[in-house]
């Protein structure tokens, strides 16, 4: 399952990293505490959050996450978007809340592989 399929199915808006939508999504991670994301997220996770400041790009990059979905209408801060474009990290947005987005993606990709 790649990001593009999820973008289509959930009608997400793509803000950056358009040419990396073919990346495989191995799992999902929902969280807004950067230290928790750093500790628990895994390579290939699609990160669902409402944190909009530029540190999210650094975290996504460091952890080799598949991309970031800002949910419930959150829009990235200007410098966040700039950084995401520069580092070519897929940054997506959704109107639905984290629970709904996570629920639907989980149905598509299943539980985390060990």
């Amino acid at each position, binding site marked *: 399952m790649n990001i593009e399929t999820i973008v289509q199915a959930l009608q997400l808006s793509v803000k950056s990293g358009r040419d990396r939508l073919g990346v495989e999504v191995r799992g999902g991670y929902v969280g*807004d*505490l*950067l*230290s928790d994301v750093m500790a628990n997220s895994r390579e290939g996770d699609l990160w669902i959050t409402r*944190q*909009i*400041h530029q540190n999210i790009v650094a975290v996504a990059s460091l952890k080799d996450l598949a991309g970031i979905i800002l949910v419930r209408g959150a*829009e990235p*801060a200007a410098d*966040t978007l700039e950084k995401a474009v520069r580092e070519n990290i897929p940054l997506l947005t959704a109107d639905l809340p984290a629970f709904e987005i996570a629920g639907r993606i989980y149905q598509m990709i299943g539980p985390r592989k060990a």
Partner: protein
Amino acid sequence: MWKRWVGPVSSCKKWLFNETFSVQGGNFDDAGRISGNIKTILKEMGIGNDVVRMAAVITYESEINIVSYARQGMIRLHMLPEHIEIEAVDEGPGISDIRLAMQQGWSTATDKIREMGFGAGMGLNNIRNFSDIFHISSDVGSGTRLKMIIHIQQEQDR
């Protein structure tokens, strides 16, 4: 960008209820207690759930701001026949650029504050979004003052 409070909202400024609560800077243990109290008071007065929610969110975010950034402050709740006024006044560093502070995501929070789930830069926005009228003023080195008004009868109730 924000609505200004332009004057008395009622020609008959008769308080039905008027109470002031003090807030201690840095006291995260206590933060949120006042919004709990206000919620109870408003519910007992028969105020509708939507308005109670608005008042509770406004008060909570105001309390957290004072606790997070100021030395001390106070929150005043005034009940008028048609409106609820909530004022949050603090003694603290003040805000040098209000427009910047009102930008979603803009925050001066420390790591400790962020780890608690605060400091995402949404507090003032929540306060503004949950008010019918919102006014903010600040003096650097002195403190910040917020004044919020909520109509007891909301649009959708009319």
